[in-house]
C-alpha cells in the first residue's frame, strides 16, 4: 500500500476583494499533493500567495474555487487535526509557558494531571521544561518559538502548518531551530507544510520545494530535494547543495524582481 495523500490541493484559486484597487488574484489554479510524513516548503516572492494557501489549508480562509482535501475530506473550519505556528510566535501572554502548552489539551477536556504530563513531555523535547512557570514576555524570541512548537505538538495534530516560523529570529538561532525541527520531525513523523523566504532553509528541511511565481501565484516548479536523512551540517557542505541553491535562485530571481516592481507601482 502506497503512502497516503495527506493534503490534496486541486485547482485552487483565490481572489481578494481589494476595495478601491479592485480584485486581486492571489492564487491561480494551484495543484499539489502532499504525502503523509512529507516536509513541503512553499517558496516565493512577497505577495505570491504562499501564506494564503497555507491559511486555506488551515481553514482560516475559505476555499473559493477548487478543492482542498485533508485525509480525503474537504477542509471546512480550523480544527485540532492541524496545528499552526506563526512568525510572531502568538503565544497567550496571560498564560505561563506550561499553561500555553496545555491549551489544546485543555480545550479538548483532558484532566489536569494528564494535561500537565503531556505538556511536560513536549516541553522537555524542546528543552524548556525548567521554564514552564514563566510568562512569555520573560522569554527570548527563540524560546517563545519553541513554546509555540511544543504547544502545537502537544495535542497531536496530523498536519503541521508553519508561516515563516523562523523569520523573526536571528540567523544563528534560526539554524539551531531548524535542527530542532528536524529532530522533532524524526521523532514524531508529522506532515509539515511551511512557508519560507529562505532558499537554504527550504533546501535543508524539505523533501520537495514548491516554487511560486509572482502574483497571481502559480506553481512555477516543484523541486525534488534528495539529500539523505538525517540531515545535518554536512548536508550544507555537499556540492549538490550549492547547485540546488543556484537553481532555486535562477527560478526565483525573475519573480522577485517582478514582485518588487508590482509593489512599487501599487504605491
Amino acid at each position, binding site marked *: 500500500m502506497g503512502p497516503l495523500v495527506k493534503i490534496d490541493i486541486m485547482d485552487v484559486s483565490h481572489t481578494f476583494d481589494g476595495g478601491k484597487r479592485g480584485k486581486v488574484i492571489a492564487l491561480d489554479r494551484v495543484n499539489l499533493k502532499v504525502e503523509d510524513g512529507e516536509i513541503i516548503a512553499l517558496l516565493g516572492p512577497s505577495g505570491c500567495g504562499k501564506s494564503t494557501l497555507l*491559511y486555506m489549508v*488551515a*481553514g*482560516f480562509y475559505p476555499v473559493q474555487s477548487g478543492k482542498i482535501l485533508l485525509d480525503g475530506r474537504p477542509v471546512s*473550519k*480550523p*480544527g*485540532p487535526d*492541524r*496545528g*499552526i505556528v*506563526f512568525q*510572531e510566535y*502568538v503565544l*497567550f*501572554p*496571560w*498564560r*505561563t509557558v506550561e499553561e500555553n502548552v496545555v*491549551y*489544546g489539551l485543555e*480545550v*479538548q477536556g483532558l484532566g489536569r494531571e494528564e494535561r500537565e504530563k503531556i505538556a511536560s513531555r513536549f516541553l522537555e523535547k524542546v528543552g524548556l521544561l525548567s521554564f514552564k512557570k514563566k*510568562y*512569555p*514576555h520573560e522569554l527570548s524570541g527563540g524560546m517563545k518559538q519553541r513554546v509555540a512548537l511544543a*504547544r502545537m505538538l502537544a*495535542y497531536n495534530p496530523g498536519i503541521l502548518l508553519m508561516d515563516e516560523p523562523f523569520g523573526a529570529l536571528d540567523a544563528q538561532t534560526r539554524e539551531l531551530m531548524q535542527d530542532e525541527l528536524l529532530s522533532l520531525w524524526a521523532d514524531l513523523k508529522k506532515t509539515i507544510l511551511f512557508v519560507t523566504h529562505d532558499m537554504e532553509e527550504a533546501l535543508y528541511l524539505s523533501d520537495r520545494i514548491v516554487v511560486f511565481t509572482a502574483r497571481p501565484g502559480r506553481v512555477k516548479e516543484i523541486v525534488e530535494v534528495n539529500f539523505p536523512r538525517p540531515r545535518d551540517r554536512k548536508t550544507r557542505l555537499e556540492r549538490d547543495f550549492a547547485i540546488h541553491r543556484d537553481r532555486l535562485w535562477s527560478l526565483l530571481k525573475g519573480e522577485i524582481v517582478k514582485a518588487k516592481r508590482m509593489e512599487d507601482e501599487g504605491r
Partner: protein
Amino acid sequence: MEYVKRYYLLVILFVAWEAVPRLLQINPILLPPFSMVVIKWFHLLFSGELLIHTANTLFRAVGGFLIAAWLGILLGILAGRSRQIGQVLEPVVSVTFPLPKVAFIPVFIFALGFGHLSKILIVALECGFPIFIATYFAVRGTSRTMVWSAQIMGTKERDFLRKVIFPSALPMIFTGLEISIHVSVIIVVVAEMIGATTGLGALLIKAKWEYETDMLLAVIATTSFVGLGLSLCLKAVKNRLLVWSPEVSM
C-alpha cells in the same frame, strides 16, 4: 546628596509657605501658614467632619465608577465583537466625547435632586466613556493570528470571549479604568460644589462662604489624597490581574 539635589526646591517651597505668611503678617484669610492648615486638618479629622464628608464623596465616586466599569466594559465588548452595534455606537460616542460632561451636572441635579443619585449617575456618565472606548478598541483589535491559533486548537465559540478576547483586551481596559478613576473624583467634587450638602465639594463651598482658607486648603489636600488612594487601589488590582504583563512585573 542626591535627595537634597532633588528635593531642595520642594523643601524651600514648604518652608516659605510657613515662614512668609508669618513674617509678613499676612492675613490668614489670604494665606494661612502651612502649620495652621495642618492643625485644621487634624481638627477636621478628629471632629469626625472630615470622615463623614469623605465617606460621602467616596461612596458616590466609587459607586459611579463601578457602574461605569460594568456598563462600559459590557458595551465595549458588544460593540467590539459586533460590527452593527459598533457602527451604531461609534458615531454617538465620537460626537459626545468632546462634550464636557460637567455641563450635565445641573441637569442631573434638576432631575434627581441634591442627594447621592445625581452624583453617582454623573460620575457614571463621565467615567463610562474612557472605559467604553478602551474596551471597544481593545476587543476590536484582538490579534487576528491569536484568534486563528485559538481556533485551530479547537476553542469553542462560547469560550472564545472568556479564554481569548477578554484576557487579551485586559491591559487596554485597565488603561481606561485608570483614566476613569482619576476623573471620577474630579467630577464628583464639582457636582458636590454645585449642588450638595454633604461631600468634600460641599465642604469646600462651606469653607469659602465662611472665609476659612485654612479649611479650604485642608480639604484640597484631602481630596488629593482621596484621588491618590483610589488610583493606588486600582493599581493594586491591576498588579494582581496583569501579573503576566511586562509593564507590571518590570
